[in-house]
């Protein structure tokens, strides 16, 4: 399941909902991305996105993860709008019978999301506002999955 929302999320409640009524799950991995203040340089973060395409991309990413690993459940929640240092930005949860699939799929979802889901961060700080530049390390992290896929 994927969700795009302004509101915060409750990690415990999300995981409880994901495993409610199920006894087949053996491993659950969660990742939470949060806003850093970068030693005072960031006072607020605006998250813009492309409504419609965001949901389409997150759904495609989730389907890709489910095609690669035997997941029993998966969840992506991404926030938009004005966020403050310390706030949650993104939640990824994966569930599988054994831990390897859940760990790998969670990392894959984050690497893939960072390079293809249409979100843009604008940081506001004492020095003014600036759009965050794409990190080349994110591209490298994403390529790793492509290479692995090609040799399989």
């Amino acid at each position, binding site marked *: 399941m994927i969700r795009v929302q302004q509101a915060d999320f409750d990690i415990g409640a999300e995981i409880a909902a994901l495993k409610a009524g199920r006894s087949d799950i053996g491993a659950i991995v969660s990742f939470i*991305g949060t806003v850093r203040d970068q030693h005072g340089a960031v006072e607020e973060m605006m998250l813009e996105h492309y409504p419609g*395409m965001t949901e389409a991309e997150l759904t495609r990413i989730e389907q890709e993860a489910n095609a690669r690993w035997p997941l029993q459940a998966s969840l992506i929640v*991404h926030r938009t709008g004005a966020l403050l240092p310390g706030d949650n*930005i993104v939640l990824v949860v994966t569930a599988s019978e054994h831990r390897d699939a859940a760990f790998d799929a969670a990392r894959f979802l984050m690497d893939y999301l*960072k390079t293809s889901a249409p979100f843009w961060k604008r940081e506001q700080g004492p020095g003014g506002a600036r*759009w965050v530049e*794409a990190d080349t390390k994110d591209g490298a992290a994403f390529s790793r999955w492509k290479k692995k896929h090609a040799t399989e």
Partner: protein
Amino acid sequence: MRLLYFAWVKEKAGVAAEEIDPPAGVATIAELIDWLKARGPEFENAFARSEVICAAIDHAHVRHDAKIAGAREIAFFPPVTGG
């Protein structure tokens, strides 16, 4: 067709969305960018580093050599920075 702009592409172009009807010779994303740049200094500035600008047709990422025929919605934006 409908054009959408996001993040600093939107700020520089000074517009978030518009309806356009490009001439017949504009067949690809790259040609559409060239056509947009000729419309005025805001667009010239927004697309100055056109090689870094990403494009999507009807909610799917495309390369600059993609054909635009039949597109309902085309979006231009900087490399994504979510997560």
